[in-house]
């Protein structure tokens, strides 16, 4: 999120409750920052596209791997090697497989970074005092002010839910 209210919670449970409550209150643009994945939060989110992208990459990579071998040994420089056929399909399988794996894992990794908006060094939330505990033992939740259900009172609501503190992230010009 770019701007809005962020609140710090001491425990997973308190975060989960807050999240549930806000969701029930109709908030759709909620973000959490947690040291480890929180089941209840992830459950409410739509599925990721990464696996499908990786599948496509695998198919393309594998196909390319096979075609390269075929082109090299059967088309570009056909040459009698030990009386074997020029297009020795069985011998081309290992590389086909490996290139499929290579392609899909490379693509997968970088797509992951992309989807996570990484790599990046600076992020508005990093400017929030105490946020550095978010990777350790604190649980943060954020309400985007572009959320249709957004109201300024949300910070009070969060406080009631047991937020240790609430901070506002101002929109940058």
């Amino acid at each position, binding site marked *: 999120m770019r701007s809005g209210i962020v609140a710090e919670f001491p425990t997973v449970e308190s975060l989960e409750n807050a999240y549930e409550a806000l969701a029930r209150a109709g908030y759709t643009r909620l973000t959490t920052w947690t040291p480890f994945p929180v089941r209840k939060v992830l459950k409410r989110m739509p599925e990721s596209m990464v696996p499908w992208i990786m599948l496509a990459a695998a198919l393309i990579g594998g196909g390319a791997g096979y075609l390269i071998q075929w082109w090299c040994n059967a088309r570009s*420089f056909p*040459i*009698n*090697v*030990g*009386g*074997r*056929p020029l297009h020795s399909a069985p011998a081309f399988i290992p590389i086909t497989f490996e290139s499929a794996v290579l392609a899909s894992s490379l693509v997968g990794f970088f797509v992951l970074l992309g989807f996570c908006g990484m790599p990046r060094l600076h992020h508005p939330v990093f400017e929030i005092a105490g946020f550095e505990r978010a990777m350790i033992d604190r649980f943060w939740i954020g309400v985007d002010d572009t959320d249709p259900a957004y109201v300024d009172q949300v910070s009070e609501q969060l406080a009631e839910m047991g937020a240790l503190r609430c901070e506002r992230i101002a929109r940058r010009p």
Partner: protein
Amino acid sequence: MADVSRRVVLRLFGASAAVAGAEACSRGPQEYIVPYVNQPPEVTPSVATLYATAMTVDGYGMGVLATSHEGRPTKLEGNPEHPASLGALGTIEQGSLWGLYDPKRAQGIRHGENPATWNAIADVLARPAAGGKKTFVLLEPTSAPHLVDLVRRVRARSDVFVGFHTPLDRRNAWEGAKLAFGRVLEPRWDFSRADVVLSLDADFLGAAGTPQAWARAWASRRRIAGPNGAMSRLYVVEPRMSITGSSADERLAVQSRQVTSVAADVVAQVAPRGAARRESPWARWVGALARDLAAHPGASLVVAGDGQPPVVHAMAHALNEALGNVGHTVTYAPSPIFEAGEGSHGIEALAAAIDAGDIGLLVVAGGNPVYAAPADMDLEKRIRSLPASVYLGSHENETARACSYFVPEAHYLESWGDVLAFDGTASIAQPIIRPLVADARTPAQMLAAMLSRREATSHALVEEHWQSAPTGQDFATFWREALVHGIVPGGGTPAIDVRVSWGPVTRAVTAASVSPAPFEIVYFADGKVHGGRFAENEWLQELPDPVTRISWDNAALANDTTARSIAANTGDVVRLEIGGRSVVAPLFVLDGMADGVVALALGYGHEIPDRASTGVGSNAYALRRAKALWADDLQPSAASGTWELARVQEHESMEGRPIVLHKRLDAYRKDPGFARELNETPVTLYELQPPGEHQWGMTIDLNACTGCSACVVACTVENNVPVVGKTGVALGRVMHWLRIDRYAAGEMRGGATVVQPMLCQHCEKAPCEYVCPVNATVHSADGLNEMIYNRCVGTRFCSNNCPYKVRRFNYFQYNRDKPASLRLAMNPDVTVRDRGVMEKCTYCVQRIRQTEIRTRRDQRPIRDGEIQTACQQTCPTGAIVFGDIADKTTRVSAQMANPRVYQVLQDLGTLPRTRYLARIVNPNPELDT
């Protein structure tokens, strides 16, 4: 020197194959083209020219065709027109090329330690020796007509003795002839007409020094076309295992001293002229042999070896006469060697004369007498006692050190000469290259200098002899003809008719004693250093001995029994002692040696530092007294320590695998198709025959192959095969593309061994090819298994997957840091391989491709036999046949149809192009038990 820089154009520095490759990313170095100033008409760059010349081995002539690339002799092949060669050359004759380029060759004339001029030497030679003393000239036995002239003229000088010496003389044979015929004659054998051959310690198949014609003729009776063909039978009586012995059908291993009595027994049975018959351990063997001989009157042949005493030769002559062989399988003629048999003023005479104090100047022309002289003579001390001594030699060797003056000897490829073959056929030896050693001289020039003709060139000396000789035609024509053909027209000296005088023979027969000695030492000249003449020759030193497969050493050869009685085993150091003198040598246990016999090859154990020969093997001359080639008062004993022998083969058993197929003749006749199943094409899914017009293939007839190893040297020289030295061989990194495998075949009698030339089999479905990750070894359209050095990255997977292990790897940089002179010996048509590259036999693809280009240029087909691989070309017995197997009319196709043909490791389905003809042995059924 234009000659050197021209090499650039000639790709001589192909050694930089890798560099060129590595520099693919940078610009190659700027090269130069250095044309002739005035190109000789006969020279066409890149097109090799053949010149006929002749080499002198032990005084006899061997016809040579030298391949010359822009004036560099790069390969020696046999001259087909020459009676001793018939196109083949042995190991030493081919290896002799090294001597020309040997970087350790003596470079200059010197007096003591100081350089001197030819004039200084000539002064010494021309003027009478100081103090009115005599001059003694020591030459090697020679048949060179122009040299003989000079000797006669030099002798006209009252103050000059001329004597002859070689450690390998034929005096026994000459004396034997005297005994039998009353005069010196040499037998001329015709094995091609002999059904039964008896060799009395005669290694006539050993490729070194003997006329290749003998092996060829013998093999002509061994190559049987089919089960109904006939083949000769070879009996061998010998103390040590020789090449001839291992090719024998029936073999009797007895001590050298016993050969006499075996011969005597044969005489006693074949021609019992009052000679008493004795009981002997070999009575049964001799009986069968005698009956076999008698059953083939006029078609048998008895030959005696130079190692045997005169009586044995006499008996051989007697037997041949009694068997009616004279005129059929053997004829007699005077020896071409000048003064053959005259021992009167040999080296002993020299010693005596020095002791008598009447020698003022010694002139040694050729040889290395100080090294090779009898051990009890101490010639070195005697020579040092002389006021002056001049030595003409190829290297700064033992003799050179003893003599006060030294003159480098001209190699026969850089000087003029002439020589007679064993049958008297004369050849004029022409130089192929300008002398690489400026001051080099020939023995003839030394003699000429003694006649105050110091300026005479070797050419002048040879020419003037032949101008005076009755040639029957105008000289220019004669000279040209003689040079073109490599032989002087008119052929050899005619055979003469003689009768054996039986008296001495019968007396000898009765006198011969059977009893063996506790230990007997047998000296012999092997096919490598040949008594020491080629001790500096790395090609030959690295060549594995055909029988022991040891390279870079000689060893004390003895059989198991003898070894046990010495309490030593292979690799142990033994001390061989005779009359107080002793040498240490590595023992090598070799089957087929006679009990009690220890054989030691001559010519090893040199001590001059920084030479190829340094510390290689042990010096047999240090033991050898007088001139006998054997002595029976040997006292061997185990010494401390071991001696690593560099062997190229460590395992003799075939482990019951179908590698060398062999069968007895009678068994073969019963089952002619015994090889067929090993020649079947396994079922395969793949397209086998490549599309090319020609399909090259090779057959090797194991019946004809004697294992002489001439082909190995041919391959080495033709294909720039590097030398890796003793350590390299010991580590298992020998580079020979073609090797002669040798296996024990106990169930066979005779040699009880089989040999097999093993080279790239050029498999149709080559296992090496499909494992190469970079296409560096692939199949050509004409069926060759190609090896592309410049593509090879050296993973060595191909070698692992080669069932025949014929691939060789450049573990180090063997070529680029070679001395320049050795690079001159390189064949410019073959890439010089770089470090880290795999290499192997290519069927001499350079010859194939050049012939293709030539014939296509002339728009004509390639004739059968027009392409000869190097090994095939030099094979004395014609065992190797190469050609187009797609064309059914070629010789190789005919061989492929022979019922004996088979594939090694056929069950692997590699479908080798190189196929073998099974070995058939012909033992005497009467001796079966």
